[in-house]
């Protein structure tokens, strides 16, 4: 591939497009739909340029490095050095951002036009800014540039979360998000300052060569701080509590962007700081990530099953999938510490491919959910149903997303989970008993998570789209989502299918990242689509592991479907007839007798009652009469599940902070003389501190 332009020009064009999007969104009135459309069009353009730049970096060997000096001389303030540069890792995440962000921008054209009623132009403006800040985070080459872009990304996304801020829950979700994000930013700051002090540089590239010389204690601290900080952004259990609040509150195109791309920036951070800068560590690093990942996968999917708010359900699935990604990262770290870089590359490939895959199908699902929520005016699945007839396009897109996230062939989720299973199976080649047992348990955890995800998505798709409408709002839905929205969804669905059928065509995107982070390249594969196979590269034995040709599986499936369809059609007597549903010989069942989302989840709630601790309340008002307890007039029954982590973990912590704040607040007496006294006291303390602990510098 020969690019006609220099990468710098592409980068500048991309940023200019995004900036135009920001400005056009702010030019007109806040409720101008036309300005919103123009602004989203600029976002589409910017994302296309971003994807082109990413492909140039990944496949064409483009690279650039832009350094900005700080006014007043960089030598005096090396901490403030700013530079943006490209490497395969940033190219990979730039591609994710460009492709998924582009598809969401296309869908936003129609989504915001029809379903967002408050200040669409402002939303479009912040949307473009959000895309640009995320691009700057992945391109940042120094600590200061990274933190600056990171903070901008967090603040912009906060404003997007609280876009519909007239509702109290939205403001509360926004506050939770803001507080958790800043706690995360503090942890990231700690890890980066430790690194900068230890290595004496703020450039990530130079840190990577020097970080090996740090003491093990410092390296452990950097690792833990990075996992806490980036894990919070990614939504890793137990730092995930902001995610199920913030994602449902935001407009759905923003949820798609946050869940599809932004939480992946947390994964990017772990790759940057842990894999690239710190490099090989003790094996407990990997086992810690593996354990947290497994915990997130199970906690995420179990919580998702209990939800009947469609967007909250999807948000919990993001926790699950981040867990799967972190399981892959943990496995890669373990393999690195055992010295088998080939297996580490396989595990890392599974993790980064799943990162891309989750970006695709989760954005698709959130867009589908956004269309249904916009059309019915509710997020409650119990009030949906039967939407498939009015919105077949959205339903089909959501179905593809649901099958992909449930790891069903021939979609992309299955490819990355298959690779991860193979990586876990690779433990048997290491000869380390603890690794074998741990990875076997991890594989079972992954299988349980994907089985439960399938359960959850049969429920989500079935209750939302199928059967008869459960409310008048659902019955009144009359038209499919706008064409641009279906177009954006089709882009994502097509990518899900393409990666599922011919994954080997896309593996080239990952090669540079794998080489840089593990030292080993891709497992062997044949480039031709329908002969592709991905054998596990087991050291020593050529035919070990598993091979697969996803293309052949897909062709066999297609042939089977055609054959079964022919069996169904050829020689059939009459065209299929529509008849009333079978009613068991009773009265025709009404929509109220359909299985509900809560009813669907009930077997899980019962088996995992130790996890959910379901609370049941029932109330009975009696008709009275001679024999009480026989005739009921009305009966109510409700059940709810607990969130012990929030109720017993975070809430006491927040209460503690509030009471501390009240105590500190007493210092603020309001009198000038008191404040002057504080200032003098501080000065004295600082002078003493300099006298005793200073001595650095002239």
């Amino acid at each position: 591939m020969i690019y006609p332009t220099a990468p710098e020009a592409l980068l500048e064009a991309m940023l200019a497009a995004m900036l135009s999007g920001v400005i056009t969104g702010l030019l007109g009135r806040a409720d101008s739909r036309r300005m919103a459309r123009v602004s989203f069009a600029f976002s589409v353009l910017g994302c296309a340029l971003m994807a082109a730049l990413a492909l140039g970096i990944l496949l064409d060997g483009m690279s650039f490095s832009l350094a900005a000096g700080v006014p007043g001389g960089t030598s005096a303030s090396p901490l403030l050095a700013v530079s943006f540069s490209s490497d395969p890792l940033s190219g990979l995440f730039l591609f994710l951002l460009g492709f998924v962000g582009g598809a969401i921008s296309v869908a936003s054209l129609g989504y915001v036009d029809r379903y967002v009623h408050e200040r669409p132009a402002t939303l479009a403006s912040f949307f473009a800014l959000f895309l640009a800040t995320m691009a700057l985070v992945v391109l940042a080459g120094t600590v200061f540039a990274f933190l600056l872009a990171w903070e901008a990304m967090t603040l912009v996304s906060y404003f997007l979360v609280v876009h519909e801020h007239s509702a109290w829950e939205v403001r509360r979700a926004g506050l939770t998000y803001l507080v958790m994000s800043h706690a995360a930013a503090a942890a990231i700051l700690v890890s980066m300052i430790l690194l900068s002090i230890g290595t004496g540089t703020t450039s990530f590239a130079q840190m990577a060569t020097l970080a090996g010389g740090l003491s093990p204690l410092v390296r452990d601290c950097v690792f833990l701080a990075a996992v806490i900080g980036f894990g919070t952004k990614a939504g890793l259990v137990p730092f995930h509590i902001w995610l199920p609040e913030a994602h449902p509150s935001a407009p759905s195109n923003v949820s798609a962007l946050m869940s599809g791309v932004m939480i992946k920036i947390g994964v990017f951070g772990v790759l940057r700081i842990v894999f690239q800068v710190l490099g090989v560590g003790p094996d407990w690093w990997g086992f810690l990530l593996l354990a947290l990942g497994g915990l997130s996968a199970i906690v995420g999917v179990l919580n998702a099953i209990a939800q009947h708010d469609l967007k909250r359900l999807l948000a919990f699935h993001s926790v699950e999938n981040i867990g799967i990604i972190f399981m892959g990262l943990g496995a890669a770290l373990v393999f690195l510490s055992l010295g088998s870089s080939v297996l580490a590359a396989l595990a890392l490939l599974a993790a980064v491919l799943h990162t891309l895959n989750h970006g695709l199908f989760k954005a698709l699902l959130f867009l589908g959910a956004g269309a249904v929520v916009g059309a019915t005016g509710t997020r409650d699945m119990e009030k949906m149903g039967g939407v498939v007839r009015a919105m077949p396009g959205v339903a089909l897109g959501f179905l593809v997303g649901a099958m992909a996230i449930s790891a069903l062939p021939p979609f992309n989720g299955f490819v990355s989970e298959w690779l991860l299973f193979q990586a876990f199976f690779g433990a048997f080649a290491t000869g380390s008993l603890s690794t074998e047992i741990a990875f076997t348990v991890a594989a079972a955890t992954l299988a349980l998570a994907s089985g439960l995800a399938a359960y959850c998505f049969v429920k989500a798709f079935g209750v939302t789209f199928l059967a008869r409408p459960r409310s008048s709002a659902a019955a009144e839905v009359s038209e499919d989502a706008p064409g641009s929205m279906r177009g954006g969804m089709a882009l994502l669905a097509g990518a899900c299918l393409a990666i599922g059928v011919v994954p080997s065509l896309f593996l080239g995107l990952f090669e540079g990242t794998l080489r840089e982070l593990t030292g080993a390249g891709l497992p062997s594969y044949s480039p031709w689509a329908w002969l592709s196979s991905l054998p596990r590269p087991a050291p020593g034995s050529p035919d070990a592991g598993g091979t697969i040709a996803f293309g052949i599986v897909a062709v066999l499936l297609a042939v089977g479907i055609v054959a079964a369809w022919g069996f169904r059609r050829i020689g059939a007597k009459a065209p299929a007839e529509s008849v009333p549903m079978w009613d068991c010989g009773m009265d025709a069942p009404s929509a109220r007798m359909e299985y509900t989302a809560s009813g669907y989840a009930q077997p899980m709630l019962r088996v995992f009652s130790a996890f959910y601790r379901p609370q049941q309340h029932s109330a009975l008002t009696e008709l009275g009469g001679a024999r009480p307890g026989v005739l009921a007039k009305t009966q109510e029954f409700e059940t709810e599940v607990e969130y012990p982590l929030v109720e017993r973990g975070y809430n006491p912590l927040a209460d503690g902070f509030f009471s501390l704040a009240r105590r500190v607040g007493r210092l603020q007496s309001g009198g000038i003389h008191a404040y002057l006294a504080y200032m003098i006291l501080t000065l004295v303390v600082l002078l003493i501190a300099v006298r005793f602990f200073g001595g650095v510098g002239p």
Partner: protein
Amino acid sequence: MTPLELVVGVLLLLGEFAVVLLLSPLLMGVIRRVKAHSQRRVGSPLLQPYRELRKLIAKDSLYAESASFVTRGAPWISFAALLCAVPFLPWFFLPSPLGFAGDLIVVVGLLALSRFMTALAALDAGSTFGGMGSTRDMWIGALAEPTFLLVIFAWGAPAGSTQASVIVAYGISLGAAYLSPALLIASAAFFLVLLAETGRLPVDNPATHLELTMVHEAMVLEYSGRDLALIEWGKAVKFTLLAGLFVSVLVPWGIAQSWGVVALVLGLVLLLVKLLGTSWAIGQFETRVAKWRLFRLADLSTLAAALALGSIVLTYLVGVGP
């Protein structure tokens, strides 16, 4: 590869499909017959499942008014997913022409795809029974899936592969030493997975007439005609797939390792014997157990997972095997 080999390979591939498709209703008939016999009944003829299929094929399909494209498409996709797994499993010869294209993890994925489509279709019409069957079936499947994966790891770890053909070839090459305690324990765990996945007692009663206790039957209440034929046939095919995997891994001997005529015929006959034997054993087993309460099945799946994990620990802790 010479043209002759190519032709023979294609023929053998088609032979695998034909064996599974044509044999599967017979196995259902055998199970029913064995059950009837041990209950001192005459029972229906061995070929009754074929007649039922012929009857359903001759009938028209009816759909509920509230049903969407999901109801119409699910039976084909579900059936195709099951057929797709055929070349990835060991039948009467090795290696299968397409055996390289998928391993046992793909088989798990294809079974999940088949179940996903059936469970969605059950929700489509909006019948209460459909929802009931759907949630139960997905629930059983979700609990069986981790055990299936553990069993694959337990079977595959000594052979170093998740490919069914490699595992079986390894077993044949090892001789009697292959039948280690670890293999037997893992196979016992797989037997429980087989019962759960194919809806046999004590998990689901395929002969029930009471809607409230149904799992699979409740899901297909809305289907008729050829769609129902595909679903019933699919159920038989699914049983054949899992039973075939079970006997091929447990007793791999007899599977042809060359494309010689004698070896192939011998392999085919032995496959028939193994499958009929398994069906007979399932029939005997079903006579002796009652259907369990739905929520007790969680105990069964925990037991199965524990067995599978125990097998892996045994392999690597005690060092049984090569």
